């Protein structure tokens, strides 16, 4: 087996294991699901093209984040939606802070599971429909007969509760 093939296999494993983290990094810089998915795929392809040259013994996420940031810039430059959002300097700043806080965000994510489990049945059902079955708010309104505006507000309140719950957990553990 050649070294390049071996690197390709390692890269595939690393990518499958880490792609959700890379997605979350991209989404912070380009907060639109469709655009973030495009960038995630472009990042994977860009990594793949360089597979034989990558040192995959080093931590993978910083490497993947570097590739991802380049792809975020490319997407932003050709996509008018983002023209007024963040300039180069602000994007670079945000990317650096996102990378620096990755471990903390990971701890928050770990705490999130328990917080979701504590939601009441109605809220949990809404979260499941919206975040797991990927139904839009108008679709949920159609299916449940609930008012669209009420559903938007409910989702906002649920996210606020989850943030507070995560904060409380991390404070209790002395992490923040």
């Amino acid at each position, binding site marked *: 087996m050649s070294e*390049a093939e071996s690197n390709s296999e390692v890269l595939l494993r690393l990518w499958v294991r880490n792609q959700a983290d890379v997605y979350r990094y991209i989404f912070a810089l380009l907060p639109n699901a469709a655009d973030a998915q495009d960038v995630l*795929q472009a990042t994977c392809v860009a990594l793949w093209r360089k597979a*034989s040259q990558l040192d995959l013994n080093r931590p993978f996420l910083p490497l993947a984040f570097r590739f991802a940031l380049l792809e975020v810039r490319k997407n932003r430059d050709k996509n008018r939606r983002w023209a*007024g959002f963040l300039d180069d300097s602000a994007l670079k700043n945000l990317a650096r802070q996102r990378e620096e806080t990755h471990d903390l965000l990971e701890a928050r*994510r770990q705490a999130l599971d328990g917080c979701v489990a504590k939601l009441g049945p109605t809220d949990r059902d809404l979260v499941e429909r919206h975040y797991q079955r990927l139904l839009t708010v108008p679709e949920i309104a159609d299916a449940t007969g609930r008012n669209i505006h009420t559903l938007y507000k409910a989702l906002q309140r649920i996210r606020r509760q989850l943030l507070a719950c995560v904060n409380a957990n991390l404070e209790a553990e002395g992490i923040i």
Partner: protein
Amino acid sequence: MSEFGEDKSADVELEDWLSQLCEGTLSPEDLRRLGEKIATDSAARRFYLEYLDLHAALGGQGAAVALPDLSRAEPLSVVEGTAGQHPRVRRWMR
């Protein structure tokens, strides 16, 4: 304006923007204002990162994407049984 955290109305406005951003309903004008806010206010930037990461971690329409079409890139040796699986995704759904 006082710093984020001390100004209740600024907190509410930022949270409204972030919620609308997550739902895809934020106007271009408010997207621009959000960009200005997080470019200049480190506390707002931190809250932005926490909020969006929570949204993405919940499932946020795309956290669990399949592998892209790699036929455009180099040929690869397929590793069996790993594609499409991610131990962290949707594990709270039981």
